[in-house]
């Protein structure tokens, strides 16, 4: 570990490049089996299998969105109720003060708004985005990750990480090229 601190620049990890998603999924799965935990796979398109291959956790996002939606609904409904019955009760065309059926459209819209905002900002927050700077971007070929190449990065922080062993391991699972990611 102390070797890492002595080095300048610090090694973030090793990045292996693959030609197609099949190889990536395969490599990632084998890395997982090999006991690597601190790693990440990158692809230009979502690959559902990757998630399973790496045994990644299922996101909590749906629960958050539900909470966001309920907050919106409750907030919207209570706001209207408070305005109509407490803040300034007024006789509007003979309708009761608490005309709850007429509060439903706004409540509904507030539900959607709360849920949608939670979905987007929750997704960003959980993903740690925005993150315009990331070590992997230091690897020039990583630009192709958004086009047609597939990458697997094993991070230096992983307990099993060893620059040479890991490089060999990656080459063994079919990496076309392995580069050092510097931070």
């Amino acid at each position, binding site marked *: 570990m102390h070797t890492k601190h002595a080095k300048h620049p610090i090694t973030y990890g090793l990045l292996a490049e693959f030609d197609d998603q099949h190889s990536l999924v395969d490599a990632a799965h084998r890395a997982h089996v090999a006991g690597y935990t601190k790693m990440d796979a*990158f692809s230009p398109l979502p690959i559902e299998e990757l*998630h399973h291959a790496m045994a990644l956790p299922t996101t909590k996002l749906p629960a958050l969105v539900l909470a966001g939606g309920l907050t919106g609904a409750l907030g919207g409904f209570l706001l209207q109720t408070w305005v109509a019955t407490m803040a300034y009760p007024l006789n509007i065309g003979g309708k009761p003060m608490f005309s709850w059926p007429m509060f439903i459209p706004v409540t509904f819209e507030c539900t959607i708004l709360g849920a949608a905002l939670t979905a*987007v900002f929750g997704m960003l927050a959980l993903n740690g985005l925005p*993150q315009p700077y990331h070590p992997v971007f230091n690897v020039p070929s990583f630009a192709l990750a958004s086009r*047609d190449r597939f990458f697997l990065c094993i991070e230096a922080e992983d307990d099993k990480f060893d620059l040479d062993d890991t490089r060999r391991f990656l080459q063994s699972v079919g990496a076309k090229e392995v580069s050092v990611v510097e931070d």
Partner: protein
Amino acid sequence: MAQNVLPVKMNQEGMPDTAVIGPGHNITSVTDKIASIVLTEKTGIVWVLGFLVAAAGAGMLLMSLSYLVVKGIGIWGNNIPVGWAFDITNFVWWIGIGHAGTLISAILLLLKQSWRTSINRFAEAMTLFAVACAGIFPLFHTGRPWLAYWLFPLPNTMGVWPQFRSPLVWDVFAVSTYATVSALFWFVGLVPDLATLRDRSESKVGRVIYGLFALGWRGSAMHWHRYETAYLLLAGLATPLVVSVHTVVSFDFAVGILPGWHTTIFPPYFVAGAIYSGFAMVITLAVPIRYFYGLQDFITMRHLQNMAKVMLVTGLVVAYGYGVEAFMAWYSANNYEGFMVLNRINGPYWPFYWALIACNIVIPQLLWFKSVRTNIPMLFVLSLIINVGMWLERFVIIVLSLHRDFLPSSWGMFRPTFWDFSTFFGTIGLFLTLLFLFCRFLPMISIFEMRTMVPGKRVAEGEHAH
């Protein structure tokens, strides 16, 4: 993708009718083709000319609105009894157009309709721009637009709040939610593509700008997982939202007590009408775009055909709505309702009503014929007719109901002024301006989703299913 092995009849573009993407594409070619429109292709003369015309229209809008604020609503032809005319007609028309974008991207996503992929991006953009145009009208149709913020529940020194029983407040919430959610949906969809543009841009400025908006997207597996979850959830939220928006818009009328407005059929009939006009607008835009940008491989005959079928179906729902209106007027034996229908049919505005019936019901029946659905110029003309028809529908509902209501002493007529037209055409200018900018600076087809559509990709869907 079983289509590839079946003997399929080829259409005039050399593709099977059912193909959603042209032959011979892989993820590399898809990426390069779409990204190149934004990054490397020269700005064409057609684009420049079109943009200038559209921008002139937007300028006219700016001028009209400025004059409106200085002088007042009186520059339009509105009066008492016709308090709403072009303003709200345009509002409903634009909002309706917007609905197709959300429908394509959200509902078709939930229904796993693969053909949505190549059209959803610009349909969503169209939604956003249409909502922006629509939003202008409720704001500027007020007598004192600088006080429009009173429609929002903001704490204030007066201690008074919006009146939440009013459909206009519902509108405010519905339209602003709709605009927000549409913008988020669109932007979230754009993020991976912005990353592509960031990585493929050759200019420093392009890299920085696209990079900033790409939020540092790097295609990480966990990111994709959350991303897809969020996108699906957004689609699930946008679907009831889009239905609610036009429902709420229809409440503007249905909550009123005016004959011609006070109708329970309005919500479904308005939503169907919105989709109808929205798909018409998508076709109106898609046909020239695929032609000028050579996107025949991505926006295929199947797309156009499917949209034509959706139009046919929603058009029939709308026709049913017209029928129910007339039937209820007769069945209720209500003097005012009966008069309202007769007044539409042979009152002073009869040409509008019959033009509406022709544009929205009679002519679109041509879509039953496959030869019409696959004839692109014909489809284009039909989509324009439906756009006009749907504008007329809102005009008929609003003006023809208002102009002769309960007391004959207060009957009146509405005649648009120059400023009515300049404001309306101005919003079309604004819409096209935004659309031109969008086509030039952002990928108008979702690149990453197209990658998933490429035939023959090695990891097929069922293979690793757990």
